[in-house]
């Protein structure tokens, strides 16, 4: 698929950062008007997940040697620590942005250490860990505001962390970032197919976090509808891309009955 157009990394990074931050901040400021608007956080989380999946695609195609899930778990691990730190400082509206910056800094430190001390030879490692930590933080922020209906440290801790939904975000959000490359890797990997799968997985994460939301029935309904629509639309797209990229799709028919086997 060499004639295939690839979206450049910077475009997707801009899409993730701007989309993610805009989603989180629209939810942050509009939620006071009506709690339904927390659904913007879900949209931001989807943007961040797509960005993260593309970073995983770029860095893991060098061969991490440990399997793709490791870097996805690393991303969310850095994200959780940075988000709780950023929100805990009590900076008000600056909190989410500080959380995002803190995650990028932590990501850069981990990247520099893995290159300088551990001796990894992947040339884009530092940039990749920085980006992936940022994407992880935005994803956690977006889904947290959906669940808690606020980004106040006290409310996030009570509704997201203590209830254990943070682990739901961790695994479902991590899936949206690491699973697309893990299941599409190989010589026939195409970027649009991978990103469609990422958006589809993010849709599932949005449905789950919408279901767990305490922001009111309106927010639950709207977020879950957005998640279901995202999942449905991108699952169809992904299926289309799979059929396009496959050499041939054949119908194997039903399993033979016992009489036919005899």
């Amino acid at each position: 698929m060499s004639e295939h157009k690839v979206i450049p990394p910077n475009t997707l990074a801009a899409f993730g950062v701007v989309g993610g931050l805009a989603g989180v901040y629209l939810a942050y400021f509009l939620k006071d008007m009506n709690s339904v608007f927390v659904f913007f956080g879900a949209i931001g989380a989807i943007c961040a997940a797509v960005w993260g999946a593309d970073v995983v695609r770029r860095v893991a195609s060098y061969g991490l040697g440990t399997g793709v899930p490791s870097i996805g778990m690393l991303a969310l691990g850095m994200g959780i620590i940075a988000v709780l730190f950023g929100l805990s400082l009590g900076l008000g509206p600056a909190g989410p942005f500080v959380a995002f910056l803190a995650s990028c800094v932590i990501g850069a430190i981990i990247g520099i250490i893995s290159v300088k001390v551990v001796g990894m030879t992947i040339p884009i490692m530092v940039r990749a860990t920085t980006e992936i930590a940022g994407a992880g933080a935005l994803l956690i922020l977006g889904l947290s505001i959906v669940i808690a209906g606020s980004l106040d440290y006290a409310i996030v801790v009570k509704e997201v962390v203590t209830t254990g939904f943070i682990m739901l975000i961790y695994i479902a959000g991590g899936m949206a970032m690491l699973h697309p490359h893990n299941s599409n890797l190989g010589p026939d990997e195409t970027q649009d197919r991978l990103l469609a799968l990422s958006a589809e997985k993010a849709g599932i994460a949005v449905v789950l976090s919408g279901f767990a939301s305490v922001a009111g029935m309106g927010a639950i309904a709207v977020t879950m509808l957005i998640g279901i629509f995202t999942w449905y639309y991108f699952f169809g797209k992904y299926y289309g891309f799979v059929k396009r990229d496959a050499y041939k799709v054949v119908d194997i028919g039903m399993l033979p009955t016992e009489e036919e086997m005899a």
Partner: protein
Amino acid sequence: MIDIVGVIAPNLLWILAIVIGGTLISISVHFIPVGGAPAAMAQATGIGTGTVMLAAGAGIAGIIAAGAVMSRNQDFGVVVGAAAVGAAVMLAATMIVGTWIYAYGVGVMPVSAKVKYDPITKYRQDLYVSQGTEGHGIPTVTYVSSTIGGLMGGLGAGLAYYALMMVGTYPYAGVTPLEVENLNLVGVVASFVIGFFFINSVIPSYNIVGTIEGFHDPKFKRWPKAAVASFIASIPLAIVAVVAVGALALVGGL
């Protein structure tokens, strides 16, 4: 804006404890027999999954053990010991069930391809390695190694958990100190330690390039690099964690 210096200053010792915990977690990964995809097809010694899954499974078991004990007994040795034993039991159980599956399900015998004689049982190894594979199953030395790894990883996780709980329950000026039973505190601390554990098990897994058999594997000699890397990486993570947990204590645990 919270008083960051006021939170960090009384907790310097605990920051050091968290950093040591992270380094222990990092070293522990080198003991755990991670086989990856080849082991899943019984073509390499160890358990057929990635470092992160095995080490994190052990670490989370350790955190659960530490959390359960800490609500009853706040003695340092008891909490950290419970975490170490919890993680070791989890890994030992995984290894023994894995051995049954490899022996009775897949039909291979536990054998290491990295050494000629098992350093513990002195049994000959190389004769029993199937052609084209790098060993299979979980031989005795690997089993023992993984149990040591579990103890060490659990020790690291328990140390980080205990340290952060102490940071949360420290009597800061002007606020009532939190109880160890405070669920919000336990939730935040557990989330931090799990994230911390994931980061510190991914760094060494890059160091061993995905697979290792245990302390008899030649790759085991690389552990100082991962230990240094995790030590440096844990410093900013520990400071950030202490600030966030201290902030929870400053707002009275909600």
